[in-house]
């Protein structure tokens, strides 16, 4: 029996025993959303629940996102688990900037989402003050089930994002990198 690897939404045909035809973009999508390499930016209590999610009982590798990387250059999902305070803010911003596109952000727990119950002189009132967030996971800390649900939400988000991005490229007839360099070239030169 042929193994149907791509899900129904994709325009996929199965031919024979070991052939799958699909568009290259769909394959790329499928790979991207099923193999997150998260960067765990764990600072506090949420990091302990993230460790629980990684460990054998909840086993997040069932959802293809267990390869945690501690280098921003190697990861595509920034998982902010824990309180981010004003002292940590420049560090978080720099880590985010160092990650290569495409990249997504999960904000885990009340503190990362909104500051939680720390309405205080040293606590950032949500990381979306400085970086964009794709999925917010509520809870203090969220249960591992909650985090896994968040990761599943992000999967859908990823294929949507990529489709949008492709549509934009098709419209403009250019790759996003070219778009950016065009814009840079079009800037008026300082006199």
């Amino acid at each position: 029996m042929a193994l149907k690897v791509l899900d129904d939404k994709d325009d996929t045909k199965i031919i024979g025993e070991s052939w799958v035809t699909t568009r290259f973009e769909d394959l790329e999508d499928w790979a991207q959303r099923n193999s997150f390499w998260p960067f765990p930016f764990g600072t506090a209590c949420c990091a302990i629940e993230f460790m629980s999610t990684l460990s054998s009982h909840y086993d997040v590798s069932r959802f293809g996102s267990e390869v945690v990387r501690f280098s921003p250059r190697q990861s595509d999902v920034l998982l902010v688990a824990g309180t981010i305070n004003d002292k940590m803010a420049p560090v978080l911003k720099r880590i985010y900037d160092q990650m290569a596109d495409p990249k997504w952000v999960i904000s885990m727990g009340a503190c990362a989402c909104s500051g939680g119950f720390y309405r205080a002189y040293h606590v950032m009132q949500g990381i979306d003050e400085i970086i964009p967030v794709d999925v917010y996971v509520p809870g203090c800390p969220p249960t591992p089930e909650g985090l896994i649900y968040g990761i599943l939400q992000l999967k859908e988000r990823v294929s949507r994002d990529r489709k949008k991005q492709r549509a934009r490229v098709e419209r403009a007839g250019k790759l996003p990198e070219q778009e950016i360099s065009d814009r840079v070239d079009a800037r008026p030169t300082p006199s």
Partner: protein
Amino acid sequence: MSTLAPPLPETPEIGQDLDALAGVLAKFPGSITPQEGLDQPTWIVRREILLDLARELRDNPATQFDMMLDLCGVDFPDRQPRFDAVYHLYSMPRGARLRLKVPLNEDQPLPSLIPVWKTANWFERELFDMFGLKVTGHPNLRRLLTHEGFQGHALRKDYDPARRWILTEDQMYQPHFDLPEGQDDLFERMTVNIGPSHPAMHGTFRLMAVLDGETIIASDVEIGYLHRCFEKMSETHTWNQVIPYTDRLNYCSSFINNVGYCRTVEKLLGVEVPPKAVWARTILSEFSRIMDHCVCNGSTLVDAGALSNFWYFFQPREEIYGLLESCCGARLTVSYGRIGGLSQDLPPDFVERSRRLLEIIPPFMEDVEKLIDKNRIWQDRTVGIAAISGEEAVNWGWTGPCLRASGVGYDVRRAHPYDLYDTVDWEVPVLQGGDVYDRYRIRMLEIRQSLKIIRQLLDRGMPEGPWITSDPHVALPPKEACYNQMESMIYHFKLIMDGIQVPAGEVYSMVEGANGELGFYIISDGTSKPYRCHARGPCFPLFSTFSRLINGGSLSDAIVSLGGLNIIAGELER
């Protein structure tokens, strides 16, 4: 192997202790005013004699205060002088405590006590950071918890709790290195920065080290990346609302923090906790301790590269989470303690479930011990690494498993028993090496002792009765009574609207947290919110020693020794 701790002396009664202190009192006529009627002997001291007095208290054979437990400030805006610097001292050989209060104004500097107790270093920096009090003779008096761009001093009463300051990258902390003599030429050296976002730094610590090859010749650590303003937050919340904040101090064993805080407030209130709650508090504290030791050993082994043990350690944690969840609905940050008891009744299958845990946990520990105890790589990386003698550890203010791994058998549960610890048969394991290996071993031994305590308590059976005190000024009356009795309804209304009114006073009370003495120093002014709530986290002195531990060792030793100390950022920085 482990030896039994020598029997500790009985804690002297306050009256008895005053006799021992009288000799010192006589040496400083006119400079010390004893304060009567508090939970422990308290002296109000003039700041000019503080350094001499500290030396005397440490060296005098009648007092032997060899440890400075804690230093915190208190702000009284309407008083002259405005601030109090409050020192808590402890005598290891005598088991006695002493509190020193130094009243002073902003422009009057304190003498630094680093020459007497090395642990004073970070405490004095914190005092400067939070209250703006200067300390003369301090080598590196800079902000500790808040960032360099911060203006003002957060724990002063006139500081707005929500006033934030933004830190930019160019303002970030520059390291302060105490280079050895003649080695201040950094030309041949390499300076490395590790953290705060680095797996070995557990996400929130920053280590800066000057390397000669692979050897660390000088280092500096920076903390504050998880400073969440616990103390300011507790001043703006009612007494029971502080409990969720205490959960997030040492979040690996949050129930112990609940107990520590509640016990302190109960001491101020003079309220009695029903036997069922005391019984449950003891059992759940021990389960929390097991969880904490599992995280500590698990993550230390991960730092050393032994990943599989992490899975072994996390499985028992999941099982204990299940028990806690059945009690209160939360896994990690439980908030199960309440002032006067527990938040709700224990589940009916509590004993049965706990017994099952006693069966589940030991095989995992045995697996780890088989893998690790005689493992050549683990031994090479840990035996003799980051070692510290008992005497020095006491001077640095260490408590808990790390101190007991250095040969000093101080355990709050044994030295100042609370809850049911004096009614069960258990031992305080003590090891002599003081290195990373012994810190790992002592935790494995303590897990066994915790199981022993739990087994005995379960054998006694669950006490009957209520789970929270019936005092209507402290605990909500039963729902039934609120609907049917006028008086209960009024009490319910008063508690919900105003919260508990705690009589004015001050108290220091401690429990044995998972990594040492967890103390709370609380001042009440008779209202529904704490006037000052200071948490003495055991991590704080432990981590202030880190530079001393790693200097002279190799960089890889520094990584493995951080895990063994079990530094929990939430408690370290509060």
